[in-house]
């Protein structure tokens, strides 16, 4: 299975009926494709919409209905639109049950860095800092490693997005939780052993007695 699809499918299993969910750009966006039809999840687009739907059918797109990247989207029955103060009031105020973001690094303490690489062009943090500070649950959806280097690090070398630790990291190889304050290996991807995960993970992982395989 495509690594991105493994991640997206596994993250989708973290969502519950009634949840208000914000999906970041990239892998997180794919999560919406794997939510069971009977699960009533509200997706927020931080540019001012709850109830985002799929890409509109041919000829149905409207220039005043877009996602946070400016791309046409649709809205489901029961959708609500609002201004940016409300949108970030929802985010900062703990009304977003789950936010799923991409990451550059997550460290053993659960700290996320995902907005800036010093020395490179800095595009700006957009809504990421508010999402990580304010959402009830923060899930990072990212590849386990980039260019052969672990993205699960001992200590973030990149500037932090927030000092609030994330709740869960889902990669193509593993699910890592931070409930006890330290990175703990919760699950491995299908066909991946605990030893294989440890071998490509820079951070020290707490390994429980049994580490089940991801259900997808």
């Amino acid at each position, binding site marked *: 299975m495509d690594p991105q699809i493994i991640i997206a499918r596994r993250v989708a299993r973290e969502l519950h009926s009634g949840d208000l969910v914000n999906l970041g750009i990239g892998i997180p966006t794919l999560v919406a494709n794997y939510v069971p039809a009977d699960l009533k999840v509200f997706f927020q*687009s*931080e*540019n*001012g*919409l709850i109830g985002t739907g799929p890409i509109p059918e041919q000829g149905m797109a*409207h*220039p*005043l*209905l*877009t*996602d*946070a*990247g*400016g791309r046409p989207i649709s*809205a489901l029955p029961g959708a609500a*639109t*609002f*201004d*940016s*103060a409300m*949108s*970030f009031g929802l*985010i*900062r105020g703990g009304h977003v049950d789950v936010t799923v973001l991409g990451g550059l690094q997550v460290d053993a303490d659960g700290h996320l860095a995902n907005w*800036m690489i010093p020395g490179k*062009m*800095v*595009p*700006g*943090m*957009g*809504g*990421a*800092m*508010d999402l990580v*500070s*304010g959402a009830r649950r923060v899930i990072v959806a990212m590849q386990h490693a980039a260019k052969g280097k672990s993205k699960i690090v001992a200590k973030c070398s990149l*500037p*932090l*997005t*927030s*000092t*609030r630790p994330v709740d869960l990291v889902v990669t193509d190889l593993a699910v890592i939780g931070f409930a006890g304050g330290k990175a703990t290996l919760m699950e491995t991807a299908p066909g991946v052993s605990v030893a294989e995960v440890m071998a490509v993970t820079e951070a020290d992982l707490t390994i429980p007695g049994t580490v089940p395989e991801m259900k997808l």
Partner: protein
Amino acid sequence: MNPVSVEEAVAMIPSGASIMVGGFMGVGTPERLLDEVVRQQKTGLTLISNDAATPGKGVGKLFDAALVSRLTATHIGLNPKAQQQMLANQIAVDLIPQGTFVERIRAGGCGLGGVLTPTGVGTLVADGKRLIEVDGKSFLLETALRAQFALVHAFLADYLGNLTYALTARNFNPVMAMAAETVIVTAEHIVPVGVIAPDHVVTPAPLVDYLIANG
């Protein structure tokens, strides 16, 4: 509210002015006003806008024409021209978290000196800012942000200046319509008084200084 032509409206904006422009990636941006700002070559602008949109669209046009000298925004990653101008030090750029951006403008419009936000505590965003504790929790003091002009795009405007917005084109427009000395509005449709029900008005008429009239 006074109805004016787009030429008259933009003529009121001097070069070097501070302007807030509504819109999110060019959606809900008063394009006609920006086209006229470019035509009248208003230079050295201080721009307050969520993003830099993309070249040719929304506030992206201001970067195409190199009219911006200072920018406060949350994300400019999709406009290479804005990035180049930032890297070449042609523009002084202040990139701030989006929730902080909108609360600072709201504070400016609502007469608040600022707000305490948890966003950015312990990060680079906290540099130079006051850290204030409330009940043992740390917050950044983020101060109010205002501009000389707000350029706002509405969906419906009635003859008095009451405004509504459509779908995701609302974004920063209503908040900016409260935070500038002079508020200039374009609307997709100008409609008679009463077409917009009182409960559906988002920006009440007294906030609007100028509405761009149909030609």
